[in-house]
């Protein structure tokens, strides 16, 4: 263990211990009488106000991986990496009206997952299963990637071996098991305080040391002037890809089960609307974080080994005194724990509600459901650690790339379904299959080119698909997920028209129009999930449901 920075390590360990205690104490915070109910464990009792929701969703959407990977992308690719900013600007006005409808219908009908909604809305267990599986497959590598963030800071501190990583995740697993969604909600306070502190200090201190913003952008310009395509501005051929990547990523983010878990935990519609105005504060922070990539160029940072994700930790180490670098590292490390906890809870909810209860044990009691969800959240995290330790981390990065493309394929059922029931359940399945096939085929055919133009990787080399491959005579490329979604939508609409013309039965809608605008104080509002026995709203027959 030579070359370990003791000051940094001590600060990181102390802060980590603080959040560990908080994680366990969280089960007593805003306490309910029994945590042994899926709603209490998995949705925190669904009573989070504006502030807690802001911290929870912020901690959930802006992950440690984002904080490490976005500057790494800007460091390597220049302007193209800045897509994270328009992405996180357009997302809130985009979902402003959508999340409140999802919140309302979920609370009237007791939906915990997006698949619950699809099942009731379209009367289709098959489509619900597809949504659940898509969600789980897309979330798993995302959890694994949080470990990449922790790994980067460990490397920078000179800590070797994988034991610290395993210990961190075991502790995380234990307090998530113990406290459910309350744990990440409480820890998110610490995480965000540290992150904001780090960014504010970084934005003031680092440019001063490097000779101002002019020098920083100047150094970046100089680095890229020799290169291929990358630069401080986008090449003309990169503009369409930039916009579609931003839009496609924005459409995908709130389809991820962990985002929906955070949304449903809000206490009412106004809390969500206010958060759509307050969450962009994180986007502003993300913009500054992205520019850390250019600061690293100006500071002449070289990544540790081949790992580009280490540039931010190394930059902090060079620019800050050890004690403050320790705080910044703790911010990244704790920043990994919050989303990892929420993601594993969301994946566990999907498995419990839409696979276990639907196909394995129809008569599961709420206690059994909660127990299965807790155990699943453990399994999910063990799987994530195993994926990082035993499989090349690159595999998780590739999978996460695929995850964004495949989660988009649930958009017609989950998002459009909130507005219309015209889409036929058979068509939704057909559209999902077509979109998946198109997306995976495109990703498979994307090569990664090295700086000298040679092919570094033959397949799954990125998400930007050259339109020339479709025989179009243009130089531009498009985000593969966006194109796959278009295929999905076209197929869904055409097949719907055909099935409707053929009068194929489309099942019974398990929701009513008024559900989508229901408010907290309405008699239909409830906090008990049970779509499998969805009784008519407002009849108050909980005895039968339980």
């Amino acid at each position, binding site marked *: 263990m030579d070359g370990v920075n003791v000051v940094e390590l001590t600060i990181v360990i102390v802060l980590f211990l603080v959040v560990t205690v908080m994680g366990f104490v969280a089960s007593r915070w805003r306490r*309910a009488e029994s945590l042994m109910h899926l709603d209490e464990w998995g949705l925190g009792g669904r009573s989070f106000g504006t502030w807690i929701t802001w911290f929870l969703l912020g901690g959930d959407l802006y992950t440690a991986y984002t904080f490490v990977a976005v500057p790494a992308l800007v460091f390597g690719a220049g302007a193209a990496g800045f897509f994270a900013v328009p992405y996180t600007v357009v997302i809130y006005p985009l979902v402003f009206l959508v999340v409140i409808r999802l919140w309302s219908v979920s609370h009237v009908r007791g939906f915990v997952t997006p698949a619950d909604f699809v099942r009731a809305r379209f009367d289709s267990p098959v489509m619900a299963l597809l949504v659940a599986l898509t969600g789980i497959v897309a979330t798993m590598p995302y959890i694994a990637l949080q470990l990449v963030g922790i790994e980067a800071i460990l490397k920078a501190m000179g800590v070797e071996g994988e034991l610290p990583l395993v210990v961190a995740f075991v502790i995380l697993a234990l307090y998530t098991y113990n406290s459910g969604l309350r744990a990440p909600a409480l820890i998110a306070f610490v995480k965000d305080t540290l992150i904001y502190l780090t960014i504010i200090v970084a934005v003031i201190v680092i440019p001063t040391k490097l000779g101002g913003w002019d020098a920083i952008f100047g150094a970046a310009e100089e680095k890229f002037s020799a290169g291929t395509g990358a630069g401080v501005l986008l090449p003309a051929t990169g503009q369409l890809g930039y*916009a579609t990547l931003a839009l496609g990523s924005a459409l995908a983010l709130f389809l991820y089960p962990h985002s929906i878990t955070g949304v449903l935990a809000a206490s009412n519609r106004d809390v969500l609307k206010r958060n759509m105005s307050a969450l962009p504060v994180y986007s502003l922070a993300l*913009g500054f974080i992205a520019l850390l990539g250019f600061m690293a160029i100006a500071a002449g940072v070289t990544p540790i080994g081949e790992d580009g994700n280490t540039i931010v930790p190394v930059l902090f180490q060079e620019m800050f005194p050890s004690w403050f670098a320790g705080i910044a590292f703790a911010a990244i490390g704790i920043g990994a724990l919050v989303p990892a906890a929420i993601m594993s809870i969301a994946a566990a909810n999907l498995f419990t509600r839409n696979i276990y209860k639907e196909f394995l044990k129809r008569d599961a009691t709420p206690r059994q459901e909660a127990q299965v969800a807790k155990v699943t959240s453990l399994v999910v995290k063990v799987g994530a650690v195993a994926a990082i330790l035993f499989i090349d981390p690159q595999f998780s990065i590739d999978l996460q790339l695929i995850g964004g493309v495949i989660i988009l394929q649930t958009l017609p059922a989950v998002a459009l379904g909130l507005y219309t029931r015209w889409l036929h359940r058979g068509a939704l399945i057909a559209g999902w299959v077509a979109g998946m096939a198109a997306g995976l085929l495109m990703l498979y055919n994307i090569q990664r080119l090295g700086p000298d133009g040679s092919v570094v990787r033959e397949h799954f080399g990125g998400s930007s698909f050259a339109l020339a491959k479709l025989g179009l005579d243009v130089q531009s490329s498009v985000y593969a997920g966006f194109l796959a979604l278009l295929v999905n939508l076209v197929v869904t609409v055409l097949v719907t028209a055909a099935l409707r013309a053929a009068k194929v039965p489309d*099942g019974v809608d398990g929701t009513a*129009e008024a559900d989508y605008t229901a408010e907290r104080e309405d008699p239909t509002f409830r906090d008990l999930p049970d779509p499998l026995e969805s009784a008519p709203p*407002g*009849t108050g027959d909980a005895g039968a449901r339980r």
Partner: protein
Amino acid sequence: MASSSRSPADGPARGGTPVRSDRSPWNWLLLVPIVVPLIVPLYNHLEPSLFGWPLFYWLQLAFVPLGVLTTVLVYRATRRSPEERAAARAAVERDAARPTVTRDQER
């Protein structure tokens, strides 16, 4: 599968839920911060720069307040009446005062 088909398909929900609408002309305003940040030619330039920042970077960061402004505006303009909001707050407090288990049994 059979169970969900038991519930009524359409019509107003029972139990006196008022039929509301999220529709409002104000909502169209939300299109501005969705469309503008996606028009890349608008900001893919170095000049005019601001505090040493090329246009590309400072203008895109400036879209953040644009998004905040429009969502705040739409939220304020489409908010429910003070009486309704007071009722909503009362409902939240009432629910918070009771543990889930009791709520469960009451139903």
